[in-house]
């Protein structure tokens, strides 16, 4: 809210420069975001939190200044002389919905002269960014900014049958509002109507037909209380947000209606030569009851952690205009002023005392006990994985979880269910919860390539969102993108799995997802017969000049299977023997089948089978390939004899020959 420095000083004497004032307000919780000199005044931009509608008027802010620096509040005088005619002679008010309108008042001012308001008023309004219109409209704005209570002036002569009805709108009813826009009303909305039609949307905006114009002679001044939640809903549904709705939806002071109403008609008498009609229409649901809250000093001290004394607490509350009914021992019995609708519990009083006492006067000291914190397995594995990839030269990226609805983004790696869509997206580009991180990594690569970066190696750890019962399943994925070939990335994944202490059976099954992967160059990775993830060369359809590889792994599964418990295996003191072999097999024979065949021999001292080359060429018959590998033999208890190794070698070749029709390649 914008306030004028000079205006504020009309309600209290204080000796603070605009900067000092800003500092006091900020430390009391009303952040002054900006101070601007305007003419011979200063405009202070005050951020008022949503719980403090009482500070949406300059008098309210003055109360805060007084609480901080002391002094007395000067409320403007509202005594005036009236005509003898009674207000009931000019207007009849019925409130049909007392729940949404618990309090409605109306006054009448006759024979006003509509003209520009005096310069002193215009100047203050200009300072806080309100455009002066005419004396009547300016007075309603002025009083609202002063008291925080919105008021509305109708042209009384345009109210049909001198009748006001506060009721729900009828279906299909329309109203042309002040800014000239025609709006359809819904049945739920509260309106101010005359005998024929709505003349205002209650608490939100007045109607065009009954607004004050240059020819207006008689004024009906409305000053009321509307149910905050309803004003908020109406304003949201219509998309109309006004100074009035802003205040009503936050809750106005039921005790402030009289002041605002009287202040406004008095100003109309003074500045528009109006004659105030005697009396007021005052339809009140019930008498407003002030809240009474007992405060325990012990509790106050416990919450704040300081030895604050009772007299200090009660002094602060008095400065905030709270009434102290009783004060004994460790109790203060407090009555809350009507404008503080936000205060209804002991804890609220404690905050008030802390706020004015000064948060910065509460010492920072703690007696919380020592407690060890143990890293969860997830945390440990995540750290480990990040270190692993950074060590390999990968950069970690962070991409958006909300993506577009393109076919690429609709890949279904982890679930057959449809992706979750946002009901109220800002833009089409961000309207769906992603089901894979890979499209985002591809976009990150594109961005980098377009900006001249080469040899991209990136990874991301983030969630994908898979439709579930009530809430979706949020699966954490580890995704990789590398400017390298399939086997480089496969090697990295194999290495990662071992690094995490996972020795479970791994399988690589042909996989197809043409939107992501190049045909016949992608695999589904199985770990212990469950899907660990996917790996493949990026599809040519993605439109890149150079090839790269992608992988997405189930991070939750990796975490589950990781094993950091390590047991020492004695190192064999006997030397290993290596034998390199090359065999010729049919093109269809996979390395996995060769490896399985070899390990199935169960030679106790066979320690490893390591592939090193595949060759197709002149010396090899078409349709066949030469596969070379190295065998490592080592016994735990003896040096192997060359005959033993030779026998083992022949056993292996024999099995390869009988099962896979493999021939030893003669060099």
């Amino acid at each position, binding site marked *: 809210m914008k306030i004028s420095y000079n205006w504020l000083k009309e309600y209290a004497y204080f000796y603070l420069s605009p900067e000092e004032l800003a500092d006091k307000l900020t430390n009391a919780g009303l952040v002054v975001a900006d101070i601007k000199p305007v003419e011979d005044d200063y405009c202070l931009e005050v951020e008022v939190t949503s719980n403090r509608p009482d500070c949406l008027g300059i008098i309210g802010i003055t109360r805060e200044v007084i609480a901080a620096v002391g002094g007395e509040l000067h409320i403007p005088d509202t005594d005036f002389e009236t005509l003898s005619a009674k207000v009931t002679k000019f207007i009849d008010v019925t409130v049909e919905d007392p729940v949404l309108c618990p309090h409605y008042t109306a006054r009448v001012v006759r024979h006003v002269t509509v003209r520009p308001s005096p310069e002193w008023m215009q100047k203050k309004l200009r300072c806080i960014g309100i455009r002066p219109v005419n004396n009547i409209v300016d007075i309603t704005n002025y009083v609202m900014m002063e008291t925080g209570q919105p008021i509305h002036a109708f042209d009384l002569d345009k109210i049909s049958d001198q009748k006001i009805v506060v009721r729900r709108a009828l279906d299909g009813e329309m109203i042309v509002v002040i800014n000239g826009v025609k709006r359809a009303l819904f049945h739920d909305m509260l309106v101010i109507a005359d005998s024929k039609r709505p003349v205002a949307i209650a608490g939100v905006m007045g109607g065009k037909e009954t607004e004050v114009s240059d020819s207006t002679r008689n004024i009906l001044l409305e000053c009321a209380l509307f149910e905050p939640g309803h004003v908020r809903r109406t304003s949201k549904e219509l998309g109309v947000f006004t100074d009035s709705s802003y205040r009503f939806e936050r809750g106005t002071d039921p005790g402030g209606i009289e002041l605002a109403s009287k202040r406004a008609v008095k100003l109309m008498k003074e500045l528009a030569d109006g004659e105030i009609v005697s009396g007021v229409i005052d339809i009140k649901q019930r008498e407003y009851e002030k809240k009474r809250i007992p405060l325990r000093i012990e509790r106050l001290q416990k919450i704040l952690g300081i030895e604050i004394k009772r007299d200090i607490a009660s002094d602060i509350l008095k400065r905030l205009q709270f009434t102290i009914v009783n004060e004994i021992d460790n109790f203060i019995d407090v009555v809350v002023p009507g404008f503080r609708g936000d205060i209804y519990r002991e804890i609220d009083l404690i*905050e008030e005392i*802390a706020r004015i006492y000064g948060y910065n006067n509460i*010492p920072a000291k703690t007696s919380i006990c020592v407690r060890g914190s143990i890293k969860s397995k997830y945390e440990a594995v995540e750290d480990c994985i990040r270190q692993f990839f950074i060590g390999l030269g990968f950069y*970690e990226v962070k991409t958006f979880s909300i993506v577009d609805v393109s076919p690429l983004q609709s890949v279904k790696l982890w679930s057959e269910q449809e992706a979750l869509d*946002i009901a109220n997206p800002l833009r089409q580009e961000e309207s769906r919860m992603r089901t894979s991180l890979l499209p985002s990594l591809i976009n990150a690569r594109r961005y980098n390539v377009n*900006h001249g970066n080469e040899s991209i190696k*990136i990874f991301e750890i983030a969630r994908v969102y898979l439709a579930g019962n009530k809430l979706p399943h949020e699966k954490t994925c580890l995704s990789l993108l590398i400017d390298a070939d399939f086997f480089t990335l496969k090697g990295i994944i194999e290495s990662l799995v071992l690094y995490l202490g996972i020795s479970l059976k791994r399988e690589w099954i042909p996989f197809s997802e043409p939107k992501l992967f190049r045909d016949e160059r992608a695999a589904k990775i199985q770990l212990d017969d469950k899907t660990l993830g996917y790996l493949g060369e990026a599809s040519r359809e993605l439109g890149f000049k150079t090839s790269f590889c992608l992988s997405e792994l189930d991070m939750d599964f990796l975490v589950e299977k990781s094993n950091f418990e390590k047991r020492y295996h004695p190192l064999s003191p006997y030397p290993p023997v290596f034998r390199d072999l090359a065999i010729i097999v049919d093109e269809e024979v996979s390395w996995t089948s060769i490896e399985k065949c070899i390990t199935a021999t169960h030679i106790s001292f066979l320690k490893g089978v390591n592939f090193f080359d595949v060759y197709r060429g002149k010396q090899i018959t078409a349709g066949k390939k030469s596969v070379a590998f190295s065998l490592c033999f080592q016994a735990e208890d003896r040096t192997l004899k060359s005959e033993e190794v030779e026998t083992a070698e022949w056993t292996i070749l024999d099995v390869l020959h009988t099962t896979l029709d493999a021939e030893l390649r003669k060099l």
Partner: protein
Amino acid sequence: MFKKTEKVKKDLQEEIRAVTTLTDAEQLKIKYLGRKGIIQDFMKLIPTLPAEQRAAFGQQINALKAEAANFIEDAIGKLSREAIPKVNNEIFDITLPGKLPVTGKKHPLTQTIDDVKEVFARLGFDVVYGPEVELEYYNFEALNIPADHPSRTDFDTFYIKNDILLRSQTSTVQIRVMEKQKPPIRIIAPGKVYRPDTVDARHSFMFHQIEGLLVDEGVSFADLKEVLNQFIKTYFGKDVRMRFRPSFFPFTEPSAEVDISCSLCSGKGCSVCSYSGWVEILGAGMVDPHVFKAVHYDTEKYTGFAFGMGVERITMLKHGISDIRLFYENDIRFLSQF
């Protein structure tokens, strides 16, 4: 025979003295020590000698062989040392650049989260996570933000449908933890949050927050101040000052916003701190009794505090980053700077 070996030794010494090039020295090595060399010839004589002389002669030959080898190797060594500058006048340039191994980096936001996690881990806080797609209840009602309440204005939210939304704050995790666990509680919850803000240099529809919660008997505002003081001093530096300002959050009472002295201008005032000398870094407060009621805690017995900070914000402050969008473009030239 003995005399013969003496002569060979003498000849060799003379010849070595005469040698000037490495090639000549190599030739000499072949002449004396080669397979068909002089010394080998002596060896061949051994079987022809009478048995009683063989051993002594053998020893003699071996000694000669060792001596000859020493002489020749010395000469070769000397010559090759001299030869280097003559043959090769290259200089080993130690100032040529080294071969850099490729290294990666953690994303700057991860670095911030990790740093914050570490500070709080030392203070005994466990790390927990919660769902990003959340029930409206956890994002609002349980946090004392009722429907149609003006405080909801501060929390514009993406919805999936009806009562399911994308959490707009990590405070949701407070409720989820307290529902399952009785005090004492000491947690921090990092994670993504979402708000329908149009993207610009300071706004992003997705960003990261870290939430903290401590609940126990006898926890006070002074404890909150000291815990945050410890964090600020550890994370931002010992000389950084801290300021608490009253504020409003529906789920804390009293509520505060916490500022630190601007590190760029040391509090003198600059564009980063809008010439105030202070920059806001987090929101905090004592857990509101309504929140405890939602999780059925005894509000008389337990008190607690909560705090929350924006990861992007403190990362931008710490590194002087002016545009939030840089975090999500993932330009390697940007990522490699941290």
